[in-house]
């Protein structure tokens, strides 16, 4: 049984295509460095959320093998149940044979009916995966399908132009040099942040804190009280649902928020940590009173090209 909270996929915006089976069946997935399983809806699932998405049909794949194991993924609004199997997964030009794939048979609740993605492809460490599941990138490494045991992500602010590169670092996506940060716990892509400052004053993460670099989270999430301090420093105000609004007219006078990681400063200007939609501006910082862990999501990754290095268990960051 694998449990994985999916509530934070609410703001996910970056999607890519993969193909499962022979002949290949197409799926749109979130490439998520904050989880480790691969799952997609299956034809055995009649829930609204499944009906509205591409569903994998094992009977139409000559390479599918049933594992006789079940999978359960926990949503904020319910749970997804499914089966585990093996099949060939094609990601761009890489053909990944005998890959464990989760196939949902039930997705209660109507929330994910409206999601643009069909499933999730996890890129975190195998310790986060369900018991019988081998993460896609681990299978690729084991079979020597990637030139180097690392992958990198560039997230564009535009609709097109974002890129996930398996097996290489692409210098055309960043300026200056990459700075490396050791992974502290090999589950998520986790490392130590030294501090968070505004105008040279520590406003959060005083004395250091643990953070994960997560392509499957849109916002920059931190402990509630720390994030509240940041919201105050940037002048964001809380609405009735706990979201923080910003006066769009103030964007040019708002401060830069600086994350110091492994002795190097990573500034986030207002253009990076705010979003503007239909004339409303909101903060890209989000508080979580239930956790001490920070999540550097798309808000951070758009600003910093990110390398996830499994060979040396380190994360590389450079100005995107």
């Amino acid at each position, binding site marked *: 049984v694998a449990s994985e909270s999916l509530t934070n996929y609410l703001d996910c915006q970056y*999607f890519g295509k993969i193909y499962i089976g022979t002949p290949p069946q197409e799926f749109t997935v979130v490439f998520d460095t904050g989880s480790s*399983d691969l799952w997609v809806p299956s034809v055995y699932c009649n829930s609204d959320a499944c009906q509205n998405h591409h569903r994998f049909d094992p009977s139409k794949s000559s390479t599918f093998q049933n594992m006789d194991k079940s999978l359960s993924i926990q949503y904020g609004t319910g749970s997804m149940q499914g089966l585990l199997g093996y099949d060939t997964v094609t990601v761009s030009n890489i053909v990944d044979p005998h890959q464990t794939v989760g196939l949902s048979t039930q997705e209660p609740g109507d*929330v994910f009916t409206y999601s643009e993605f069909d499933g999730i492809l996890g890129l975190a460490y195998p310790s986060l995966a369900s018991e019988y599941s081998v993460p896609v990138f681990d299978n690729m490494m084991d079979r020597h399908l*990637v030139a180097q045991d690392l992958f990198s992500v560039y997230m564009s602010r535009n609709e*097109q132009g974002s*890129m*996930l590169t398996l097996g290489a670092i692409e210098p055309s996506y960043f300026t200056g040099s990459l700075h490396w940060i050791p992974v502290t716990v090999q589950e998520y892509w986790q490392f130590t942040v030294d501090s968070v400052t505004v105008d040279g004053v520590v406003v959060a993460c005083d004395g250091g804190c643990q953070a994960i670099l997560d392509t499957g989270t849109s916002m920059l999430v931190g402990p509630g009280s720390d994030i509240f301090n940041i919201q105050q420093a940037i002048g964001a105000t809380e609405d009735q649902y706990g979201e923080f609004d910003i006066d769009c007219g103030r964007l040019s006078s708002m401060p830069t928020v600086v994350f110091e990681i492994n002795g190097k400063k990573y500034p986030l200007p207002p253009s990076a940590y705010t979003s503007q939609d239909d004339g409303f501006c909101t903060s890209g910082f989000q508080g*979580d009173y239930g956790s001490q862990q920070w*999540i550097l999501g798309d808000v951070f990754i758009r600003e910093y090209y990110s390398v996830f290095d499994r060979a040396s268990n380190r994360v590389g960051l450079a100005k995107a």
Partner: protein
Amino acid sequence: GISRIPLHKGKSLRKALKEHGLLEDFLKNHRHAVSRKHSSSGV
């Protein structure tokens, strides 16, 4: 050994729920869970 997967920036679930008039209910009912990212996979 090098694979490039173009990602597209699409519509977030938040925006889709808003368009279907479901966002307010979702945030009301799941406010505490929206930001949480934790996996107990393998447990």
